[in-house]
């Protein structure tokens, strides 16, 4: 049973880890994505994440359940939206599996698919102005 969550407050990583670490687990793989202080040569003050929440929840669940079925593992994902300070976690993925190979592969699948399909967007806020990040493109007011 996968657990996915979209949150507006700092991500608590330990509960995710506990959620996936059953006694059948030989490996727990944890991925944390955090926000950088610079992007494409500009210094970033903070980030804002926006989501199409009902769909993002469904898509996150789909990603997690697909990984669970394919690698016989347990998956928990939390994604933060709203204002996120530099150095804070924007996403955390925990995978518990029997062996490390499945845990790594499933975790990688989750973050890669999330970045492809889950309707969440980030906006980089600079000292002056802000830009939307859309895939590889930087779009916006300045």
């Amino acid at each position, binding site marked *: 049973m996968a657990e996915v969550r979209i949150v507006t407050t700092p991500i608590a990583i330990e509960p995710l880890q506990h959620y996936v670490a059953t006694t059948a687990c030989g490996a727990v793989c944890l991925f944390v994505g955090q926000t950088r202080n610079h992007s494409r040569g500009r210094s970033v003050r903070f980030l804002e994440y926006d989501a199409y929440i009902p*769909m993002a929840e469904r898509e996150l669940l789909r990603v997690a359940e697909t990984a669970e079925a394919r690698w016989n593992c347990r998956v928990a994902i939390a994604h933060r939206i709203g204002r996120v300070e530099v150095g804070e976690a924007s*996403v955390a993925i925990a995978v518990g599996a029997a062996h490390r190979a499945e845990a790594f592969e499933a975790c990688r699948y989750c973050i890669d698919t999330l970045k492809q399909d889950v309707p969440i967007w980030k906006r980089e806020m600079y000292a002056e102005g802000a830009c*939307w990040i859309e895939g590889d493109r930087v779009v916006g007011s300045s």
Partner: protein
Amino acid sequence: MTPEHTALQRPMGAHMPVSGGLHTSLIAGKAIGCTAVQLFTANPRQWQNAPLSGDAVRAFREAQEATGVRFVCAHASYLINLAAANEVLERSRDAFRAELERARQLEIPWVVVHPGAHAGQREDDAMAHLIESLQRILEETDAQHNPVGIALETTAGQGSTLGWRFEQIGAVLQALGKHPRLGACMDTCHIFAAGYDLRDAASYAATMAAFDAHIGIEHLKVIHANDSKKPLGSRVDRHAHIGAGEIGAQGFVPLLQDARLASVPVLLETPEARKMHAINLQRLRCLADGQPLEVQVTVLFFGHYRDYYPAPCVLMVPYGATVRELAEQLAAQDVRLSDLLQYCRFAMDTEYVTPDSALVSDCELAVLPPVSGG
């Protein structure tokens, strides 16, 4: 008779909830333009119901007077099975007697009831129970001078239900000597799921010819207009909004424009009463008048498009329009939206769809530029 004339003349409306007392169904119905209302006169999922209070009866009659709703019918409890074999049979008969008594008090002319289910009996035995139930109850209520009519509803044939073949309803009417207080209710979703097509002039004509041969058009007292989530002949009963199901909006036109049925009341039993009954009713009136139908789409923008459109946009598009056509319509209205088809993906009601998908009535369409979560 012109189509405009039929739409004016025929009582049209919906099954209305009775949240604040029975009379509120009429008031809420009137507020959304109903000239006909169907209601449950008691909780349809329980056997025992307290008798109506004098106040409730008075409030109902006053509301009918005040609202001018021209046609009212009651829908009997779902628990009632007048074709049952065991102890459910007597309970059903008692509950149905109570339905007819409440309708009499409220001056409601028809109670719609499902013919029941054989639930493991031989079909002939179940039909015999149904006929005997109706015979007894008609005799008793005739003796009491209760004028309320019984409209047997066509069913989808789900599980062991009776009445999904017109022959079955016809056989009951026949067996009871076409009693004047006995009639039929035709539900478009149910007959479609039971295998009777009505989506074009030819199939509709064939379906009504069968109805007339087995039941008799003159016995049709109430029409339930519901689209069907399930395909023709699926025998699964799932009501959909008008135009949002397998029958489709145009599939209602032959029925709504049939001059032989011009005075038969039409009632919706579609989902989401509060939000959607007014819209579905409007659709039926448009179709009856031969007007083209439009569907309402709520468009949500994300990424940088949110800077232009922070709030959802409600648009009307022609019935059957695709996501691509909607994107073209948006591009024509705002040059900043000219690249949507090349640049964005789309989701209808939170599922990714291709540009060639047809827009479903009342959907939420999200415009999704490349994502950047993580």
